[in-house]
């Protein structure tokens, strides 16, 4: 299996096509433009439909339609564009349809800028659209994972009949690293007896998110919540390094986890006991393992490219057993390993409250 040097956005696109993608609907926005560009070039030649919609709202509703028809479908955008898609995402979650939504996050709020950021964490894991729903949220940490988690995303979407979000950022989208694709060409698609793909010879299927009778709506909600509990029980993923003896555990996802990893290496060289905990699923969040790692005398340091969003989930998991601090940069600035290391020193020397 040959290594290919690719941008994260391209690796993700190639993985989606290999996963049996049949339809891609999108609208241009930096820094995710390599995704629609790759799709436009390759998808029609490999048995799929590429369509640039007239807006993000239109694109997500095309996804809704294609997902209802039971085909593997995807859309991609960056922060302001993802905001526009939220209504459609809520409908898709309510109708329990599988699809993959990619957010290559840039700095916000508002139109913001085009530089890498992580300010869409709340939107991705806490809702974003209206109502009680959840997305499965996967956070790649390198170009290989941009590919691998996209493949996994399609499988999880089908398995749970739930939209999956790939929460990336401008660095992971724009950077190049070697990536290896499995050569077996197998597509792990499941039967979709619920799909609205022609009712000849059977009862017609209905895909809908309208639920107007309260007692029935409540029962449907409870079924949805039961599914979310099962996902929480089965799909939590994370990675940890040097956590066993750590006095300070850095917690970060995506690009921040890479900066944190460099900071951990610098710290270990100085003899400081620093570990790294990297959530791969942001929802479900690896709260149980973080709770196990929490203990007196140990601190956590959330590393983020946002005002401190993931840190709230770390605090909920740790539940007051250990202090949780924040090292962050905003506005499209990327934290440096030296910044994080300085914060670690402050914690170890008792210079933080």
């Amino acid at each position, binding site marked *: 299996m040959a290594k290919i*040097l690719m941008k994260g956005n391209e690796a993700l696109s190639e993985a989606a096509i290999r996963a049996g993608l049949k339809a891609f609907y999108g609208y241009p926005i930096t820094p995710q433009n390599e995704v629609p560009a790759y799709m436009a070039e390759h998808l029609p030649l490999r048995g799929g439909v590429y369509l640039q919609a007239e807006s993000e709202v239109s694109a997500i509703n095309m996804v809704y339609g294609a997902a209802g028809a039971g085909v593997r479908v995807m859309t991609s955008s960056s922060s302001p564009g993802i905001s526009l898609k939220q209504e459609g995402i809520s409908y898709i979650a309510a109708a329990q349809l599988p699809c993959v939504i990619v957010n290559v996050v840039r700095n916000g709020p508002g139109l913001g800028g*085009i530089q890498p950021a992580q300010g869409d964490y709340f939107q991705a894991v806490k809702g974003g659209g209206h109502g009680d729903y959840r997305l499965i949220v996967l956070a790649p940490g390198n170009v290989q994972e941009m590919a691998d988690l996209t493949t996994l995303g399609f499988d999880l979407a089908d398995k749970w009949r739930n939209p999956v979000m790939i929460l990336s950022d401008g*660095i992971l989208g724009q950077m190049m690293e070697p990536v290896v694709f499995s050569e077996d060409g197998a597509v792990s698609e499941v039967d979709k007896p619920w799909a609205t793909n022609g009712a000849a010879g059977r009862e017609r299927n209905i895909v809908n998110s309208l639920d107007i009778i309260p007692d029935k709506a409540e029962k449907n909600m409870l079924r949805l919540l039961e599914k979310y509990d099962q996902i929480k029980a089965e799909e939590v993923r994370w990675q940890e390094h040097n956590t066993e003896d750590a006095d300070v555990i850095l917690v970060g996802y995506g690009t921040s986890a890479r900066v944190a990893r460099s900071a951990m290496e610098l710290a270990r060289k100085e003899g400081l006991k620093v570990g790294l905990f990297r959530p791969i699923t942001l929802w479900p969040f690896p709260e149980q393992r973080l709770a196990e790692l929490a203990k007196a005398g140990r601190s956590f340091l959330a590393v983020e490219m946002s005002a401190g969003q993931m840190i709230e989930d770390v605090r909920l998991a740790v539940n007051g057993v250990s202090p949780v601090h924040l090292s962050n940069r905003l506005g499209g600035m990327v934290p440096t390993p030296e910044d994080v290391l300085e914060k670690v020193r402050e914690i170890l020397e008792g210079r933080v409250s």
Partner: protein
Amino acid sequence: MAEIIIAGFGGQGVLVLGQMITYSGMIEDKAVSWFPSYGPEQRGGTCNCSVVIAEDEIGSPLVTVPTTAIVMNAPSFDRFEPKVGKGGLLIYNSSLIDKKSERDDIRVIAVPANQIADELGNARVANMVLLGTLLEATNVVKTESVEKALKNVLSERHHDLIPLNMQALERGRAYQ
């Protein structure tokens, strides 16, 4: 671990030079990453890229304290010369940069890259001249790997340019 910043005007081959080093590292089975500045740049504007070549998994792909900086124009010299880490290397294009480094804690090599490229008959190989200087000064990647990378990165119809690129690289080696 080599943490390299390459910077210059858009159109000088800054990003491609970074990709060549990255590709060569990949051929040698090293861990590699390449990250471009991707602001609202355009031809004539400034641009740069970060390249990391390591034995193990790479942390931050954004280089903040470069072990080597290759700078191709004056604004990039001003921006990155002070950032090179102690004991590091600064290679700069003296055809376009009329400055001297005051630093005594890094190695500084001035290369008239544009002048050499012009002598070779193609201004676009100035970046390869600087790569030659880098290959001689450090062992970040092997010359054979660069030659292989050129074959992979250049489309087949441009393979006739490989000898010229390798010639430019050889000329760059002389400056140390």
